[in-house]
């Protein structure tokens, strides 16, 4: 690299030199009028005696070129002096890479070019270090090229694999969608039949009731009081039925309300108004705070208490902030924490936060939210809209879905990837045909106009309907997850396809960092996990993966992470850093970044470096 000298040394030398070059020391003007010009620009300067400023702002004479006075604001006329703040100085750096410097570096007493040409006013002497520096640079470059050469191959393989996998995904999706619509039709038919049956059953019931009533009426003409009681009873039964409906509905409502509370708690972690919610943390923290007040004399603070006194601040209830009961240390810590947003060790404070949020996540958002997202995308799915079903139908379906989801609740199916083994894994188109056949048979067998209804037939329809609609919903969720997957940006050449459903881990001290592209990034310490961000997008022409909206920092922003990628032979997180509070940066080396163009560029660079090696590298 460049050689640097002590600033104070420069001053001493320059002060000494001042005496030597009195009275007029014009060494800040270079001897060569074309000094500091890049080779490709020389023609521009040499072609005429009056030269235009490159920005078109004016022109200057040959005599004004490098005369240490700025005539063009863009610096065209002073490539070799520091007169124009906007100018650039070219150092040839024979033996190394040529560079362009800000002209403010010219004659500033610091050697910037390895060939030392930027310092010529005699105040410092810069030795030429280009040869050594160049050699180091070339060696480094060679290594890099070697990595790229292997990496490019790996990348190509990846891309090939990704392409066929993607095609497979797409084909599967297409197939699933077809099956979905067929199955939907069948289910619809079944449903209609089921409703038909139910209508019949209802009629049957009413008829029977009527019959019975009539019978009873006849019977009880003798005893009027008794008959009245029976009527009453019947009405009761009816109402009970209604009641139980209402109860179901209410139960649904309660569920949603709960999840609301949970979510709001998520945001306002320490809000005192969550009091009375069902969540344990709140109770715990309230208890903690009470404990704090009670334990006035206790000086040895346990973590729990630390947390709770932090809460006191967090509530920020100005008027009622009560510091009277605190010990001296507690008061000191409390006031200090206003600036630091923490108590005691910073890490423990953060871990605390993280833990809380994590627990919450488990309780509420994880299961619920994901479900909702699934629904949202399903509803948004245009194909539904084109099914030509009318609005009432849609409404009905909505309800039906709710039913389905709640009935699936205890099932593990919805927790992760839906299990479609019975529907999809067969990968055999005949399963659908079989079903169609079965249903057709069923429809033929069942005589819907027979009265009274054949109870076995009715049960079969109902069972078939239940089974198939559950199959349909599984199928739909598979379609939606596949659609979701394919919506992702896998890069211009799908080179990031293999990142889907994968995580990269790196251990740094006590933390384990986990980067899961298309999903989230997190920091784990023991059993606590802090979400550093949810997948956002690629940035900087696919060189950076951005994760945003992670867990909130106390008194700070939402955590976020940027993963910068560079060419490497393995997918590997090599460095994690937090340059600004709660803004993380990681380095991922991956073959996906080993681009052929870049390899060519590097090779070209090496070639030009090699060609520039001068025989006599001691020229200044």
């Amino acid at each position: 690299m460049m050689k640097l000298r002590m600033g104070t040394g420069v001053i001493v030398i320059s002060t000494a030199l001042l005496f030597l070059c009195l009275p007029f020391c014009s060494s800040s003007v270079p001897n060569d009028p074309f000094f500091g010009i890049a080779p490709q620009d020389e023609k521009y300067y040499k072609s005429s005696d009056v030269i235009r400023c490159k920005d078109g702002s004016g022109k200057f004479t040959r005599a004004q070129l490098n005369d240490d006075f700025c005539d063009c604001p863009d610096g065209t006329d002073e490539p070799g002096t520091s007169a124009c703040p906007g100018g650039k100085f070219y150092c040839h750096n024979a033996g190394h890479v040529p560079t362009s410097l800000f002209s403010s570096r010219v004659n500033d007493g610091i050697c910037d070019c390895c060939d030392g040409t930027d310092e010529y006013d005699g105040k410092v002497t810069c030795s030429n270090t280009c040869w050594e520096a160049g050699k180091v640079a070339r060696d480094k470059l060679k290594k890099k090229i070697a990595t790229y050469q292997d990496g490019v191959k790996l990348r190509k393989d990846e891309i090939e694999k990704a392409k066929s996998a993607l095609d497979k995904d797409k084909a599967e999706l297409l197939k699933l969608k077809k099956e979905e619509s067929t199955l939907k039709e069948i289910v619809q038919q079944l449903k209609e039949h089921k409703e038909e049956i139910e209508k019949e059953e209802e009629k049957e019931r009413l008829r029977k009731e009527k019959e019975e009533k009539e019978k009873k009426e006849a019977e009880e003409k003798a005893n009027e009081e008794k008959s009245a009681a029976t009527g009453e009873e019947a009405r009761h039964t009816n109402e009970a039925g209604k009641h139980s409906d209402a109860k179901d509905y209410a139960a649904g409502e309660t569920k949603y309300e709960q999840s609301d509370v949970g979510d709001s708690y998520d945001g306002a972690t320490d809000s005192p108004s969550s009091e009375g919610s069902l969540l344990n943390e709140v109770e715990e923290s309230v208890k903690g705070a009470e404990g704090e007040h009670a334990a006035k004399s206790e000086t040895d603070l346990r973590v729990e208490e630390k947390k709770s006194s932090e809460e006191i601040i967090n509530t920020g209830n100005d008027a009622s902030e009560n510091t009277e009961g605190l010990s001296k240390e507690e008061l000191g810590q409390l006031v200090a924490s206003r600036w630091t947003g923490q108590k005691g060790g910073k890490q423990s404070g953060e871990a605390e936060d993280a833990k809380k949020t994590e627990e919450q996540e488990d309780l509420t958002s994880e299961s619920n939210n994901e479900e909702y997202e699934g629904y949202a995308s399903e509803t948004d799915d245009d194909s539904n809209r084109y099914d030509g079903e009318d609005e009432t139908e849609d409404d009905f379906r909505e309800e039906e879905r709710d039913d389905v989801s709640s009935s699936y609740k205890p099932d593990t199916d919805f927790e992760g990837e839906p299990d479609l083994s019975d529907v999809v894994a067969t990968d055999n188109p005949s399963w659908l045909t079989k079903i169609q056949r079965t249903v057709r048979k069923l429809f033929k067998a069942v005589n819907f106009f027979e009265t009274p209804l054949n109870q076995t037939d009715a049960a079969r329809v109902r069972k078939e309907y239940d089974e198939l609609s559950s199959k349909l919903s599984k199928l739909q969720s598979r379609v939606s997850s596949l659609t979701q997957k394919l919506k992702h940006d896998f890069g211009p050449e799908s080179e990031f396809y293999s990142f889907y459903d994968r995580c990269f881990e790196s251990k740094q001290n006590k933390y384990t960092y986990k980067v899961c592209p298309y999903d989230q990034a997190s920091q784990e310490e023991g059993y606590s996990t802090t979400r550093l961000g949810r997948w956002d997008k690629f940035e900087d022409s696919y060189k950076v993966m951005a994760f945003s909206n992670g867990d909130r920092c106390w008194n700070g922003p939402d955590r976020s992470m940027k993963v910068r990628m560079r060419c490497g032979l393995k997918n590997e997180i090599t460095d994690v850093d937090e340059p600004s509070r709660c803004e993380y940066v990681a380095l991922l080396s991956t073959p996906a970044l080993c681009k052929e163009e870049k390899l060519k560029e590097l090779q070209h660079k090496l070639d030009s470096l090699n060609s520039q090696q001068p025989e006599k590298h001691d020229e200044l």
Partner: protein
Amino acid sequence: MKNKTQTLPLLFFLLFFNHVHSWKKEEFRTCHQTPFCKRARSRTSSTSTPLIATDVTISDGNLIAKLVAKSKQEETQQNTNPLLLSLSVYQNGVVRVTIDEDHSLNPPKSRFHVPDVVVSEFQSTKLWLQRVTQETLDGDDSPSSVVYVSDGFDAVLRHDPFEVFVRDKSNGNTRVVSMNSHGLFDFEQLKVKGEGDDWGESFRSHHDKRPYGPQSISFDVTFHGADFVYGIPEHATSLALKPTKGPGVEESEPYRLFNLDVFEYIHDSPFGLYGSVPFMLSHGKQRGSSGFFWLNAAEMQIDVLGSGWDAENGISKLPKNRVDTLWMSEAGVVDAFFFVGPTPKDVLKQYTSVTGMPAMPQLFSTAYHQCRWNYRDEEDVEHVDSKFDEFDIPYDVLWLDIEHTDGKKYFTWDNVLFPNPEEMQRKIAAKGRHMVTIVDPHIKRDNSFPLHKEATEKGYYVKDSSGNDYDGWCWPGSSSYLDMLSPEIRSWWGDKFSYQNYVGSTPSLYIWNDMNEPSVFNGPEVTMPRDALHIGGVEHREVHNAYGYYFHMATSEGLVKRGDGKDRPFVLSRALFAGTQRYGAIWTGDNTAEWDHLRVSVPMVLTLGLAGVSFSGADVGGFFGNPEPELLVRWYQLGAFYPFFRAHAHHDTKRREPWLFGERNTELIRDAIHVRYALLPYYYTLFREANTTGVPVMRPLWMEFPSEEATFSNDEAFMIGNSLLVQGIYTERAKQTSVYLPGKESWYDFRTGNVYKGEATHKLAVTEESIPVFMRAGTIITRKDRFRRSSTQMTNDPYTLVIALNSSQAAEGELYIDDGSSFNFLQGAYIHRRFIFKDGKLTSLDLAPASNGNARYPVNTVIERIILLGHASGSKNALVEPSNQKVDVELAPFWVQRKNSPAVMTIRKPNVRVTDDWTIKIL
């Protein structure tokens, strides 16, 4: 459903967040909760004990008198002794009045006189009074004693009722500044605690034993011929002090002077902040300026009384054009200084003749500083440093906050984060840059910490009321505080800065003193208890406001020692007191990234300047919170004009180094910083002016235009020196602004060169490129238009002269140069030129005294460019004498580094040396 679940937590969060970010008002005492203030504020002239002056004599060149109760009966009733008054007169219109208990009557304890604030040179300007004239004032029965102050001014001690004032003989003997004109003077004398006396006071969970009982002092001060009063920093409030009490005034708290570490202070409040300078200036169209300074380091509360206020019943009987004030202090003595003015600059000169001239700063420290809590480790430091180079943004100083230490033990390094501090500093220094580390006054109570061990053994800590080392809580946890009142302890502390003692320090490292109010997290009002004890039995209540000052002094003197007396110290302090200007720079503490805080930074910095503390600034960007890029850019554009220009941020904020907000914003910030670097020669010349006259670098408009009423309460705009007027932009997406340009002469837009009429308010379109800055016709300033990595590399760069011609085609300006770091300028090693443009000719004159001869500062720099704004002729040439060279005159860009900068008349390459006498004639 989805929406609902997301907005709800957001709402919750906002509510909760607003609460977290708030000033803890209830933690600080109001006047009503402060017994002495409550008593003094409710006193009227009829409830006060009237005093008379007796036994008036001349002794040791002073006027001496006794103050006794008017009726003997009251004296015995109040059980009070006579007080001793001494009045002395100093050159240049300064009168000093001290009032204390009579030591010959053996008071229980001697009251505290603040040492080491009045400079020793002041004593030598004393005029030895030879005689006193007796004169009966109009309407009085008894005589008053009159002594001569200076041409045109007398000091008068009125005997009955007791009153002290300075009067203007040339103006019909009218009063200028007077004390006790309303008879509110009250002096609570010390008492011996008797049986059953409980003088203790409680506030929240803290108890103050107050072993000497109430000992407060209060009195009224009137500024005559004044429209407004200014000064008494530090408050976040307007420049012209709003009345706190009086007819038609919504009564507020008095202005409080009590050094406090205030978490998230609000932008408009008379509440006391980190520093206290009990010095007030008045200004009025009629009479000009006068000043009053009360040297007292105890808690002070000052009421500015609304026009028409009356000491008895608030009814207006008094003439307008006066401002009455009420001064109340918890302890100490009366040691009051009257300054006669009559111009604002005269008052500054008079005040700094007492408390000292602002120190000449290191040149590098007048450039741009980059700070953050915290630059985390050596890698971070190197990264930030290299980014400045990558973006071609100059900066001079990189700062390290508390996290660089090993467990908040100052003078140590966290050896994981900073394993090679010397090498790190050397790398920075190789680019001519400097570093600053923080050293706070709280010492970690850790027996493995040698500093603590030594301080404990030597008994150097402040004691609690029971005589044990006071143990408070600050960053390191349990901490003690050195007793900086003691010269011995200060000297010991100073030695800790030697390169041997401060391991890992190098000559390019300077110091930052924070938390020196002192901040004590578990103390009453976040500071030290008032009954803590300093050497000589001095109670903390008596010395509180000066504690940070002594700490700053000790650090600053330590750095002088470190450099063998050859290197100027640079120490930034947060706490301040009268005299702080001698020791270093001040910043306005933990402000917030809000437009209102940008706005209030101007009156805050102006007020510090009026109190002599010229080298000051506010954190650019705002300490708390995340500024929008627009606010950050506007803050840089304004902050580039603060005398002390530093960006700083809290550790919870997002990174905000200048290059992080996109290309355009980087460009705008770079340009703002460039303007400061271009103006460094002008700033340095102004720092020298402050150093010799006390007149601040950044000035209220009325200091330059004292007779223009329109400027008296303007604190949106300010002057840099006598030449540049700067108007901040304080609102988001501003399209237009109004700027009042004072004076009969015109002004030139400092970006475009366009001319604007004086004595007029101009509606201007606002650009994003810069805030409005104008150059006053008739002035000359020097610029350096080449931008380097830091100011260090600019030493030999040539100058640009900008000449703004007035209506008679004339202008004047000065340039001061020295080596920028040593004390050699005191021996005359400097260059001081005056440039005069008149009759088409520019002349450079030597202002340095001839005796400087051999000690001259040798410099070879030339003037490469002379810009003439407002020149009438279209000349093509100029003649340089004595070298008899012809040089070109042409149209060239006003700012060479800016695209499309308008062309202005420019003398090209005169290349005359700044050290020489020469003339340049426009042909």
